[in-house]
C-alpha cells in the first residue's frame, strides 16, 4: 500500500505551509511593520534549509515512489534554499526602492521554491510536470511584478506565453514516454527498458520533446530566446532568482531524467546534446559580447553558462563517466549560483528607478569609489570566466574533465574557446569599473552587501578548499544510477 510519509518532502511541506501562513499573517501585520515579511519568509526558508541539511545521506522514497529523497535531491534542495534566501536578501531593499512592495512577493517566491524542490525530488513524470508548473507560474507572476511598468509586464507575458508553449512540448513528450513504457514512474521506465517492453523509438521522441521543454527552462540554444528579454524586463531580484533557481531546477529535472531514466537513449540523444551544448556555449557567448546593458549581458552569459553545464549531459549514457559528469554539473551549478547571485546583488545595488544604472558604462569608477564592491564584482567575473582564484575555475576544470573523460575532446575545445570569448565581455565590466572614470552611486544596504560579500568570499574560499564540495557533489549522484 502507498505510504504517505511526508518526511522525505518535509522541507517542501514546511515551505508551502509557511507560505500559506505568511499570506494569512500579512493581513494581521500593521502597515508600518510589513518589513517583517521578508524576515519571516527567510526564517521559513532557514527552517526548511535546516531540515534539508539534516536530511543529508538519506535515501528514502514516499508517496508510492513519486517523491524520493536522495543525495541528489538533497543537494538541489540546499542549493534552491540558498538561492531563495539570497533572493530575499537582494529583494527587500529593491522592492522598497522601486516602490513595488507587494507582500505576496515573498510567499510567491517560497511557493516557486517549493516547486523547484519538488522538481529535484520527483520520481514520477507527473510530479515533474506539476513541479514544473508550480515553479513556473509564480515566476510568470513575479516577472510581471513591477506592473504597471511596461517592460516588466512585457517580460511577464513573454515568459508566460513561451513558457506555456514549451510546457506543451514537455507534456507531449511525457505522453510519448508514457506511451512507450506504459508508466510515468522513472523507475518504471527503467524497468520497462530493462524488461524489453519499452518502445524505444517512442521513448526517444518523448525524451527529445521533454529535452526541448527543459531546454527552454535552462535557456539552451535554440530555446533560449526568451531569456534576455525576460531577464531584462523582470524586476532584478526576480531575474536573479530565475537565473539561479529556475535554471538549476531545469537541470535537476534533466539530470534526473536523463541520467536515471534515459541512459538507454544515449545512442540517439548524445549527438543532439552535443550540438545543443556547443550551440549554447557559442551563441550565448557570442551575443553577450555586444551587449551594453548589464542585465542583457548577464542574460546571455547565463545562456552560455547553461551551455557549459549541458556539456556534462553529453556523456550521460556512458556509465563509467556519467557519475563524474553529473557530479561536475552539480558542482558547476553551485559555483554558478554563488557567482550569479553575487553579480545580481551588485547590479541591484547600482540599479536606479526607471531602468537607470543598468548600462555597463554606469559601472565606471566603481573600482576607485567602492573598492570592496568592485573587488567582489571582479571575483564574480573571474569566476564566470573560469579564472583563479575562484570556484568557477575549479568548476570548469571539473566539467572539462568530465567531457574529456567521456571522450568528447572536440566539445571541450569548443568549451575552452568559448570561455575565451566570454573573458572578453566579463573583462569589459572589470575594465569599466577600474579603468574608466565615473561617479557611480550604488545603494549601500546591508543585505545586499551581505549577499555580494558572502558569495564573493565563498567563491574564493571554496576554490581553495573545494574538497568537501566535490565530495558532496560526488555523493549526491551516487544513488542516481
Amino acid at each position, binding site marked *: 500500500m502507498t505510504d504517505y510519509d511526508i518526511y522525505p518532502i518535509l522541507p517542501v511541506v514546511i515551505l508551502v505551509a509557511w507560505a500559506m501562513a505568511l499570506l494569512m499573517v500579512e493581513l494581521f501585520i500593521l502597515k508600518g511593520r510589513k518589513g517583517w515579511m521578508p524576515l519571516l519568509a527567510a526564517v521559513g526558508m532557514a527552517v526548511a534549509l535546516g531540515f534539508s541539511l539534516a536530511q543529508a545521506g538519506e535515501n528514502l522514497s514516499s508517496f508510492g515512489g513519486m517523491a524520493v529523497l536522495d543525495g541528489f535531491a538533497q543537494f538541489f534542495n540546499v542549493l534552491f534554499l540558498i538561492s531563495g534566501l539570497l533572493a530575499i536578501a537582494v529583494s527587500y531593499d529593491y522592492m522598497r526602492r522601486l516602490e513595488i512592495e507587494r507582500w505576496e512577493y515573498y510567499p510567491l517566491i517560497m511557493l516557486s521554491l517549493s516547486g523547484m524542490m519538488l522538481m529535484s525530488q520527483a520520481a514520477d513524470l507527473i510530479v515533474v510536470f506539476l513541479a514544473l508548473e508550480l515553479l513556473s507560474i509564480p515566476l510568470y507572476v513575479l516577472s510581471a511584478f513591477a506592473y504597471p511598468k511596461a517592460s516588466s509586464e512585457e517580460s511577464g507575458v513573454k515568459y508566460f506565453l513561451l513558457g*506555456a508553449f514549451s510546457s506543451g512540448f514537455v507534456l507531449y513528450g511525457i*505522453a510519448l514516454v508514457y506511451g512507450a513504457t506504459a508508466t510515468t514512474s522513472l523507475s518504471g521506465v527503467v524497468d520497462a527498458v530493462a524488461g524489453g517492453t519499452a518502445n524505444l523509438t517512442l521513448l526517444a521522441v518523448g525524451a527529445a520533446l521533454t529535452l526541448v521543454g527543459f531546454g527552454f527552462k535552462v535557456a539552451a540554444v535554440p530555446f533560449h530566446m526568451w531569456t534576455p528579454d525576460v531577464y531584462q524586463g523582470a524586476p532584478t531580484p526576480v531575474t536573479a532568482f530565475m537565473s539561479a533557481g529556475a535554471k538549476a531546477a531545469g537541470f535537476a529535472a534533466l539530470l534526473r531524467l536523463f541520467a536515471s531514466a534515459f541512459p538507454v537513449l544515449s545512442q540517439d540523444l548524445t549527438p543532439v546534446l552535443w550540438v545543443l551544448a556547443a550551440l549554447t556555449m557559442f551563441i550565448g557567448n557570442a551575443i553577450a559580447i555586444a551587449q551594453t546593458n548589464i542585465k542583457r549581458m548577464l542574460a546571455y552569459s547565463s545562456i552560455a553558462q547553461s551551455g557549459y553545464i549541458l556539456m556534462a549531459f553529453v556523456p550521460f549514457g556512458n556509465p563509467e563517466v556519467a557519475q563524474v559528469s553529473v557530479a561536475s554539473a552539480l558542482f558547476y551549478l553551485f559555483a554558478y549560483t554563488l557567482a550569479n547571485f553575487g553579480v545580481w546583488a551588485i547590479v541591484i545595488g547600482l540599479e536606479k528607478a526607471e531602468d537607470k544604472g543598468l548600462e555597463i558604462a554606469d559601472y565606471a569608477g566603481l573600482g576607485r569609489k567602492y573598492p570592496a564592491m568592485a573587488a567582489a564584482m571582479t571575483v564574480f567575473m573571474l569566476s564566470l570566466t573560469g579564472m583563479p582564484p575562484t570556484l568557477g575555475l575549479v568548476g570548469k576544470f571539473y566539467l572539462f574533465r568530465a567531457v574529456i573523460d567521456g571522450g568528447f575532446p572536440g566539445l571541450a575545445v569548443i568549451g575552452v574557446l568559448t570561455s575565451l570569448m566570454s573573458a572578453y565581455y566579463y573583462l569589459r565590466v572589470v575594465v569599466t569599473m577600474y579603468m574608466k572614470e565615473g561617479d557611480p552611486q550604488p545603494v549601500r544596504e546591508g543585505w545586499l552587501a551581505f549577499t555580494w560579500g558572502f558569495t564573493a568570499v565563498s567563491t574564493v574560499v571554496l576554490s581553495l578548499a573545494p574538497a568537501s564540495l566535490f565530495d558532496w557533489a560526488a555523493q549526491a549522484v551516487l544513488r542516481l544510477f
Partner: protein
Amino acid sequence: MIPVSYYLVLSGILFSMGVLGVLLRRNALVVFMSIELMLNAANLAFVAFARTFNQLDGQIFVFFVMTVAAAEVAVGLSLIVAIFRSRNTVNVDELSSLKG
C-alpha cells in the same frame, strides 16, 4: 475497434496545429488558445495510450493537466488583462520593446 494509432496520429495533427497557431497568430488570446490546443492534443494522446495499456494512469494524468491548464489560464489571462490595461493591445508583436 479503431486502432489506437489513429488517435495518436490525430493527436499529432492537433498538436502541430496548436503549434502553428502560436506561430501565426498575433492576438495574445488566440496564441494562448493555441497552446490550450496543444495541451489538449497531449491529453488525447494520454487517453489513447491509457486505453492501449488498459491503465488508468494516463487518464489521471489528463485530469492533472486540466487542473494545470486551469491554473495557467487564470494567470495567463490576468497577465493579458494587465498588459491590455497599460498598453491597450493584445497584439503580441507590439510587445517587443525588449530586444537585442
